[in-house]
């Protein structure tokens, strides 16, 4: 038998606990003919009946704190319980470190839940103690590399407490494990944007970085998207060596749709800046759009036809 059934045998309902016999439980008021009724277990009903009673009395006590713990165990997504728990913690001036330990355990079991992560942030805001946050989020990320909440919390800690050092190394390791981890690429952009900014030197370095990663997996959208991102302000044709690299990849016969799409946007830029022969370049544009729409990226056929029509209208018709 599982340990949970053993636990169930020794579990005592709140209604049977002598220390609670002064409290009258409050059943849920679903009205006379409720809809979306949930077939609650007896345990669930019992805990929440007492939670409602405690909230109605506005009781902020040790037993109320324990009760919120039971309620959270049954439904960690109940934001009202978390909200009340924070009020109790404040009223009792509880040790945040103890609460943090309790919370870490719950997050380990409930990694994709808004309430647990919001509670964590609230605790760090109170205590101003962020000493465990980077290790904790790194641990969660090692189990679930794209956990949105963990990344969001990590970004908040880094920004709030200016913990930028070492983050690029952390990202490097993740990208070495999985070069397709888009959350790590996003983090890289976030760190650079808030530290050095995209200066000429940094952009050159990041182009080299992206090229190396693209060479590992040329169809990896994350790396291509990042490359576009770092060139957002400068333009895709800003770096001569990158332009050469793009053409050389094409010359080698690389069939990544992201490469063709990048080259297409380089042509778009040349045309816009009137840096090329319109007819010759539009011929190349047509052939790239055809390749994408009919061969290498057919699911986006409509998009590529739209791009071609728009460019034709923009550059040729005038």
């Amino acid at each position: 038998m599982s340990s949970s059934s053993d636990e169930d045998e020794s579990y005592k309902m709140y209604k049977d606990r002598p220390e609670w016999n002064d409290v009258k439980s409050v059943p849920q008021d679903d009205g006379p003919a409720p809809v979306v009724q949930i077939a609650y277990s007896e345990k669930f009903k019992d805990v929440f009946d007492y939670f409602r009673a405690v909230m109605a009395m506005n009781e902020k006590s040790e037993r109320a704190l324990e009760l919120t713990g039971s309620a959270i165990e049954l439904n960690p997504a109940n934001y009202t319980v978390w909200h009340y728990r924070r009020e109790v913690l404040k009223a009792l001036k509880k040790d945040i470190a103890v609460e943090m330990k309790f919370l870490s355990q719950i997050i380990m079991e409930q990694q994709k839940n808004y309430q647990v992560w919001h509670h964590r942030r609230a605790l760090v805001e109170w205590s101003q103690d962020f000493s465990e946050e980077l290790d904790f989020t790194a641990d969660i990320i090692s189990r679930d590399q794209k956990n949105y909440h963990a990344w969001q919390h990590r970004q908040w800690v880094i920004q709030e407490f200016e913990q930028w050092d070492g983050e690029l190394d952390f990202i490097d390791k993740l990208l070495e494990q999985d070069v397709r981890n888009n959350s790590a690429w996003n983090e890289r952009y976030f760190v650079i944007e808030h530290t050095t900014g995209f200066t000429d030197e940094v952009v050159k370095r990041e182009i080299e970085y992206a090229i190396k990663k693209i060479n590992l997996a040329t169809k990896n959208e994350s790396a291509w998207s990042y490359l576009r991102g770092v060139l957002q302000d400068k333009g895709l044709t800003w770096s001569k060596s990158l332009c050469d690299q793009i053409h050389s990849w094409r010359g080698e016969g690389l069939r990544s749709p992201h490469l063709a799409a990048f080259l297409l946007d380089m042509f778009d830029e040349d045309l816009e800046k009137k840096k090329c022969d319109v007819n010759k370049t539009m011929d190349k544009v047509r052939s790239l759009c055809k390749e994408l729409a009919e061969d290498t990226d057919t699911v986006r056929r409509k998009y590529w036809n739209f791009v071609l029509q728009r460019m034709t209208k923009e550059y040729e018709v005038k």
Partner: protein
Amino acid sequence: MDWLEKGDGDMKLNDDEGLATYSSIEQEGVEHNVMKKFKDFEELMDIQPEIFLTRDRHIDYLLKGLNMLSKSYECLDASRPWLCYWIVHSLNLLEEEIPEVMKSRICKFLGKCQHPKGGFGGGPGQIAHLAPTYAAVNCLCSLQTEEAYNTINRNTLLEFLWRMRQADGSFTMHDDGETDTRSIYCAVSAASLTGLLNEDLELFNNSVQWLVRCQTYEGGMGGCPGAEAHGGYTFCGYAALVILDHYKLVDTDRMLRWVTNKQMKMEGGFQGRTNKLVDACYSFWQGGLLPLIHNTLEQEGGVEGEVAEAQETWLYDQMALQHYVLHCCQCSFGGLIDKPGKSRDYYHTCYALSGLSSSQHCPNNHAIHVGPKTNVLVAVHPAYNLTYDSVQKAMHHFVNLPLPSQ
């Protein structure tokens, strides 16, 4: 089978280029399951040449949940207005008439979820939260009855919205709650449908600027500035900007490129983020973004004249999406699922159907559909995810009411 034949068959499968990583291994697992679904159908095509939307089974599943849910729904005990909305909206899409008695029961139940200080909680006695507030308002608008409209206390709703508003234009989800892109959308949508928006624009001062900062270098939007581009947040952020009429502030081209790239080449469904797996709920969050972007392009003059490609259809492969939803996401007992191997739930049922509807109804009101014409659902309004009828009737009802005094 056009989705297997068009293009080079090999190009459709994931190519890890000799470097298998966690992401590519997971992706190949999903493609294997999806391919099996497509092939199973192909083998039986002589007996059953068309794929059906199993309407009756979905309706049975929805009606059952409207009454009673199993113990496994305890985890959604703080999301009961959502369950009402997912079910009622799905029934509307399927043109299943809800009996008047049931409509009234839903109104009374949502009334119990309404907090005396405004807004709706996740269940009776819970504090107000913007997400169930959005869901409750959407559900009541979907019911289209006087009782439903009168259930909403607009005076306290407006007070609640003001209480959630932060100085920088963002909104917290509840008292002492979290702030993200969803909260602004929920507030904007609820205010707009109940006629609180037009003359009270100050409520959303700076909200637009906050949202615009959420657009990432990829083109989609994240939950807050700096966070990774994500389908759910992009829909919320962009739809809020559309409702507030400030959609031109985002980089539309970048967003269009990002969202079209989220459609999976083999599965036909959408992923929520770059290099993540397909999930039927993104049929709406991502697929539903394209009608909104289409409208922006039209405003900018980008889809008129020679640009015919965008005139008659949305800029993604609508048929491929329909194949995915119909072949891979229908549970044989009714209800829809995330991807093959997952179990059904009301969230995925609602968003898979909403996405399916959005992919069936093109601009200029013509419908394109995989399978028989009976697969066509009622059209959805892309900004609110309600039927057009529900939006129009709600707006008509609330527009004539006086604005609450402050």
